[in-house]
């Protein structure tokens, strides 16, 4: 065949091939394993009102409900209550990583079944929950941070590969961004929302609650001022859109995660959103780069404070970002980032804390200062 007859692949095909490669590439499932652990308590919190009603002898169909479809199967009362209890057990097993795949799939199936029993069961946080559970059920995320892995080690069997095709992670990232994007966009195109009418009216109607808070009078006055909401509403909309887009780029990702956490904490304190805040904050872990132990933290084991710090990092490094290695005596802590740049002293401590899920939110601002103190390559 002559080279003239071979046509170059179209740009579309190249793009599809690159996407295929991206989705099929094996990456660390650590973030999904951590999300699985965190999702269990969220499911229990979600099931709590259903279980509480069932304990009091009430289920959904004892009062107004509206099936999505006449053909949707409804179970005898005892079986339905049993399923709810099974979902709670499965959620605990999912979190602990016991028979992880089965437990996660069972949790997903029952939570989804229950959601679709009635239009009255539907809330955005529950929709997000079943998306997360569905993707966790599809991903092999029980090979670490799990009793399954622990028992495998105890039996002397080799660990299973902790990496797997990246598509569930990418889908979850897409869904996460879609939640903020859809919410922000709907407010952006609504003149009442973007102009501040909606937030202003909500706050004015809740003025009595506001006055019960320990807020100074001037703050209450400001919050109920119409002109304040002209700006505040735009800030809220732009915050949601910033989170939706900022998460996709490495340069803005940490800022987007930081803003998202603050945003959810504010929502949790000001509105009743069921499990939304907990779930949304937990899902943010999927934005961690899916590779593990690619940063180094060197600590002087002869120094008590450094030794304790190293132990804390090991314990809190749920995303497995660091290899903690001994440093020569009398040296300061040293952090080597993924790109080879090195930080020393408090800057290294800030780097470590900024990469641990529990401390990241507090430490990320400190890292902005530490950024200037990086040295490239080995010292």
């Amino acid at each position, binding site marked *: 065949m002559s080279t003239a007859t071979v046509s170059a692949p179209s740009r579309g095909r190249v793009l599809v091939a690159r996407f295929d490669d991206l*989705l099929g590439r094996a990456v660390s499932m650590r973030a999904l394993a951590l999300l699985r652990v965190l999702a269990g308590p969220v499911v229990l919190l979600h099931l709590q009102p259903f279980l509480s009603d069932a304990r009091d002898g009430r289920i959904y169909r004892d*009062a*107004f*409900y*509206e099936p999505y479809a006449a053909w949707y199967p409804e179970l005898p009362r005892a079986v339905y209550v049993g399923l709810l209890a099974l979902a709670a057990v499965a959620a605990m097993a999912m979190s602990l990583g016991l028979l992880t795949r089965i437990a996660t799939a069972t949790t997903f199936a029952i939570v989804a079944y229950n959601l679709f029993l009635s*239009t*009255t069961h*539907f*809330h*955005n946080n529950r*929709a*997000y929950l079943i*998306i997360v559970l569905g993707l966790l059920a599809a991903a092999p995320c029980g090979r670490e941070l799990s009793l399954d892995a622990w028992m495998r080690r105890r039996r002397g069997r080799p660990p299973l590969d902790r990496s797997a095709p990246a*598509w569930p992670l*990418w*889908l979850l990232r*897409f*869904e996460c961004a*879609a*939640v903020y*994007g*859809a*919410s922000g*966009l*709907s*407010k952006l195109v*609504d003149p*009442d*929302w973007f102009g501040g*009418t*909606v*937030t*202003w*009216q*909500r706050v004015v*109607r809740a003025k009595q609650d506001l006055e019960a808070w320990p807020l100074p009078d001037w703050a209450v006055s400001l919050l109920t001022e119409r002109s304040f909401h002209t700006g505040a509403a735009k800030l809220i909309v732009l915050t949601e859109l910033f989170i939706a887009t900022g998460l996709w780029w490495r340069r803005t990702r940490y800022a987007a995660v930081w803003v998202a956490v603050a945003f959810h904490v504010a929502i949790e304190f000001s*509105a009743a959103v069921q499990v939304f805040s907990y779930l949304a904050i937990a899902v943010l872990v999927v934005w961690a780069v899916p590779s593990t132990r690619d940063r180094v933290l060197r600590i002087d084991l002869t120094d008590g404070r450094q030794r304790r710090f190293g132990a804390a990092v090991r314990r809190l490094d749920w995303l497995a970002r660091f290899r903690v290695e001994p440093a020569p005596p009398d040296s300061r802590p040293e952090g080597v980032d993924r790109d080879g740049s090195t930080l020393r002293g408090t800057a290294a401590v800030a780097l470590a804390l900024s990469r641990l899920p529990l401390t990241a939110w507090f430490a990320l601002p400190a890292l902005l200062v530490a950024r200037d103190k990086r040295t490239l390559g080995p010292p």
Partner: protein
Amino acid sequence: MVAAVVVLQLGFVARAYWSDHKEFGFQMFPESSTWRADVVRVTADGRRIPIEYPWSGYRWDELVQNRGLRYPAVRHHADAGLANQLAFLDAALDWVADNTPRDAETRYLEARVTSWHNADPPRVRVLRSGVREAAG
């Protein structure tokens, strides 16, 4: 499969702009709208009895307990938007009409709804359940 999920999700987001319940549309805190309704049972002989009075062993606040519909006469915030709220109220009227077998006198339930969409002037509309054939 990934492409299918992405397209489906985007479809749900678009659908949320015209559907009542906006499933998977993720439109959070969409409106500051409020509503209230006078709900009555209209009997076969034409009487209009507020649902605040129990009837045939039934109570509205026991039959309809969720989605902010328990006390319709009190002005409420429409959490997920007016369209969503009124669709639920409409469905609740039908459900009560269909699930109160001891009631032999009610022909249908009717809600006279006053709603305030954000800062717009109030709007009044009437919702009715299906007609109950069993009513004498």
